[in-house]
């Protein structure tokens, strides 16, 4: 298929405002009468609050109000209502808000916070799921049995289990009994931070007329609107949420979190907007963090390498609330098969309450954690079978006709992982790996990967499209632009469908629930697929409307008409035509009489037929899979143990490339995030749950010097059945195979199997020393 705009490097129109510093981020917003909130955070990760003395803070200069959680009677959450806007009588993690000062300036608020006195009775802190599950562990939420929750998700009262998800396919015991070779291992993917450079934050304004207005650096304005309305007893339409430009997300700005806290505070000063922007430390500890996933894996195979059985047990240290993390674990669990078909599976995942900040979405959404385990185990199994790991993988890849752990049958249109693997290895092997020298050891590693979207079955993206009187087009959607360029993606899809130049199509800037069409939230690498589909549908409807009016004016049936972007014309008599501009507001005859509808349309799109898991944990929950393969050449400096990535190769079957520069940016950025997690990033807590490194100075965030010296990025385009022009999601996938590819390369270089990340130089040095090297 020849495209006019799809697949071309058509530059994003939203960049001028970004390079000139003129686009408006949350912290750039100043409202009349605005007040500033700052928070007191606890000294203990787990404690009873005995008393809070706010008298000195109340008397401090500039202070308007001091707020605590006292009297807060609601909990909130989409899946399990286990979140509170502010600690009520106990604190459960170190970044939790305990009290807030509202003042004329942020500085005055900060100074007054220091004057608040709190008396605590410390409780034992549980910072890892293993401790929280131990016999006799204090339940972090003694009342968890009373929490409202969605059907199918259920805290186990009196324990720290927030939810258990089990997937059964076939008969796993039979599978292991039939296996000639069984390998086992336990892997750890520790806590990390999404760490967007723009910190999270919110502004909330309770108006005197009982309406509420909020601004947030969030990707889910409609969830914020619905939850604020529910909690404050308002009709949903009386809450208006604005989303300005976002300075990155990577997961943690999904779901309603800090907005409830700022709203609670603002509800005490009705009539005045209250702003809070996280400090970097708060961004690390008082929003959502990532990962915290341990994977126990046992894999059984026949002598010829056919995979027969998979048993995984996944423990998630989900933090003090599980609402935002419960689906991360479900995705981690059912995708722990990686890109392979297993006839027999028993996959068990536990979301466990811990005294750490709540875990939420993080680019990759549970996939990189368990596929680290799978892709390392496959290498270990290949050694035991004395088989080329490439052949072992090829034998077991999901392909047309395979049945995924979820019970879903795969089709050729789901993509081709074997081809991704072939292209990745071809690029990697185009140059030989240097042999060991005085200074360095060299290794080459590989990993295959897959990701399914994890969203609610009702998750939709909507589009409002209108033709203007000059034939140009405006498109309004609810998709949160976090940097990925989704507005340009929508624009190019519309240009292709409408056959008009992209410069004639104007996309929305901010999202405003008062005007924007509904979208659940912009998550799961699903905007191109769902949002793009919605655009396609809106365009088709608009063209149909143009034709309906033209049919009246030209006195022909609509199916005799065609459209070329400028005109609607009679197919076999193109001279009989009308301009699109003349039809945009209905057609006006010379005498003024006007016929036909205004050409504006709405549409939406969701993943067709998505379901919740059934009693076996299976269901239609994947659908839009994206498969890929990643590999790398690394070198390890013997003296320091430092790892450098010489060449990183990624190939994804994305169905259709919409914009080459943007998609390359998604992959290069994702690979870098994966390298950060693999080599240096870890958010650390001590045994008492206190954070050890909540600053960029101590949380090692990758810089340009950590980037691969060479990066190859390739795409396979097997058109999918769901997305526009066959496109599939790509936003999260590039992080998934990075850790196993590097760890497999490390094994190739030094012959040591590593089971956890980050692989810091000290760990490598210790391993080299252990080898007498």
């Amino acid at each position, binding site marked *: 298929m020849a495209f006019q705009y799809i697949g071309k490097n058509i*530059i*994003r129109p939203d*960049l*001028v*405002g*970004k*390079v*000139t*510093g*003129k*686009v*408006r*981020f949350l*912290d*750039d917003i100043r409202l009349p009468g605005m007040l500033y909130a700052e928070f007191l955070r606890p000294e203990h990760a787990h404690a009873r609050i005995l008393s809070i003395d706010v008298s000195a803070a109340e008397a401090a200069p500039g202070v308007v109000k001091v707020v605590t959680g006292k009297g807060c009677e609601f909990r909130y959450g989409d899946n399990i209502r286990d979140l509170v806007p502010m600690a009520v009588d106990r604190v459960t993690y170190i970044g939790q808000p305990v009290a807030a000062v509202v003042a004329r300036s942020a500085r005055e608020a900060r100074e007054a916070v220091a004057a608040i006195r709190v008396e605590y009775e410390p409780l034992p802190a549980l910072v890892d799921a293993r401790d929280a599950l131990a016999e006799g562990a204090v339940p972090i939420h003694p009342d968890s049995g009373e929490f409202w929750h969605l059907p199918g998700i259920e805290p186990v009262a009196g324990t720290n289990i927030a939810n258990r998800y089990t997937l059964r396919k076939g008969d796993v015991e039979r599978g292991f009994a039939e296996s000639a070779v069984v390998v086992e291992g336990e892997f750890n993917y520790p806590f990390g931070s*999404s*760490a*967007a*450079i*723009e*910190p999270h934050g919110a502004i909330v304004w309770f108006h005197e007329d009982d309406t509420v207005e909020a601004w947030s650096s969030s990707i889910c304005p409609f969830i914020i609107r619905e939850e604020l309305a529910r909690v404050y007893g308002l009709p949903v339409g009386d809450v208006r949420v604005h989303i300005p*430009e*976002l*300075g*990155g997300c*990577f997961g943690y700005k999904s779901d309603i979190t800090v907005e409830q806290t700022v709203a609670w505070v603002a509800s005490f000063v009705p009539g005045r907007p209250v702003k809070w*922007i996280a*400090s*970097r430390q708060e961004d690390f500890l008082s929003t959502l963090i990532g990962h915290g996933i341990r994977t126990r894996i046992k894999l059984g195979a026949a002598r010829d390498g056919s995979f027969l059985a998979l048993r995984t047990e996944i423990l998630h240290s989900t933090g003090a609330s599980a609402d935002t993390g419960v689906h991360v674990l479900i995705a981690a669990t059912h995708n722990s098969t990686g890109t392979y078909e297993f006839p027999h599976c028993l996959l068990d995942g536990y979301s466990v309450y811990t005294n750490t900040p709540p875990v939420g979405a993080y680019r990759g959404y549970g996939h990189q954690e368990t596929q680290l385990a799978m892709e390392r185990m496959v290498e270990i199994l290949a050694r035991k079978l004395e088989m080329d790991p490439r052949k072992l993988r090829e034998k077991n890849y999901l392909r047309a006709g395979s049945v995924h752990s979820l019970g879903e049958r795969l089709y050729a249109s789901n993509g081709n992982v074997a081809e991704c693997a072939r292209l990745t290895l071809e690029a990697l092997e185009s140059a030989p790996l240097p042999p060991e020298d005085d200074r360095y050891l060299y290794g080459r590693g590989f990993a295959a990967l897959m990701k399914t979207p994890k969203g609610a079955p009702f998750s939709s993206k909507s589009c409002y499209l209108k033709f203007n009187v000059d034939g140009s087009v405006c498109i309004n959607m609810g998709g949160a632009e*976090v*940097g*990925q*360029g989704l507005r340009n993606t929508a624009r190019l899809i519309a240009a292709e469908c409408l056959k008009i130049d992209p410069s004639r199509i104007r996309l929305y800037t901010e999202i405003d629930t008062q005007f924007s069409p509904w979208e659940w939230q912009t998550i799961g690498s699903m905007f191109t697929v769902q949002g793009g589909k919605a655009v396609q549908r809106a365009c088709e409807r608009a063209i149909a409307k143009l034709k309906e009016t033209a049919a009246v004016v030209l006195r022909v049936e609509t199916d005799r008409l065609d459209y070329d972007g400028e005109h609607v014309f009679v197919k076999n008599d193109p001279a009989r035509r009308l301009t699109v501009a003349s039809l945009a507001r209905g057609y006006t005859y010379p005498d003024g009489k006007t016929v036909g509808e205004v050409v504006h349309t709405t549409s939406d799109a969701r993943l067709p037929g998505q379901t919740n898991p059934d009693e076996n944990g299976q269901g239609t929950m994947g659908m839009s899979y994206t498969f890929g393969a990643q590999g790398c050449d690394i070198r390890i400096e013997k003296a320091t143990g430092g790892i450098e990535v010489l060449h990183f190769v990624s190939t994804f079957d994305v169905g259709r490339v919409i914009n080459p*520069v*943007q998609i*390359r*940016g998604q992959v*290069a*950025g*994702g*690979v*870098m*995030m994966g390298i950060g997690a693999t080599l240096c990033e870890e958010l650390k807590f001590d045994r008492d749950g206190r954070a050890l490194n909540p*600053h*960029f*100075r101590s949380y090692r*965030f990758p*810089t*340009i*010097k950590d*980037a691969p010296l060479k*990066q190859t990025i390739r795409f396979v385009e097997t058109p999918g059945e769901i997305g526009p022009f066959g496109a599939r999601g790509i936003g999260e996938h590039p992080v998934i195979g990075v850790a196993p590819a590097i760890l497999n390369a490390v094994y190739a270089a030094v012959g040591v199997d590593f089971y956890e990340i980050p692989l810091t130089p000290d760990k490598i040095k210790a391993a080299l020393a252990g080898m007498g090297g």
Partner: protein
Amino acid sequence: MSETVTFKVNGQDCALEVEKSEKLIDVLRLRLGLTGTKRGCDDASCGACTVLVNGEARKSCVSPASRLGGAEVLTVEGLARGKRLHPVQEALMESGAVQCGYCTPGIVMELCALFAADPDAGREAILGALEKHLCRCTGYEAILEGALAAQKRLRG
């Protein structure tokens, strides 16, 4: 303790009473409304708040405003001439070096300072300058490409 300091911002004279503890970023963002300078960490580790002070790249989140007397400050708002963007801005846009754009103003200013001081800065010097800036979106590849394209453009 406050004192009056007189300095120039984007070519315009400016006299302000500043507190001893007040940082340049707050003067720019809160008092002058120049919100193009971004706050990312407050401890000089992310680079988003970088501006030029007398032609040198400085992290405004740790620069005391009280020491600005007589200085010439240039922020991202001062670069474009009307609608004509600075070559660094153009090159970063065209190279795909901008995704969310939050780290961008700092990087733009850093590169402006670097190429003004050393139009022939080598790869290592460019990497050294960019190493002071954290970007979560791009993986840096396109930023380096944009920097090299900007340098080429500036040399003419």
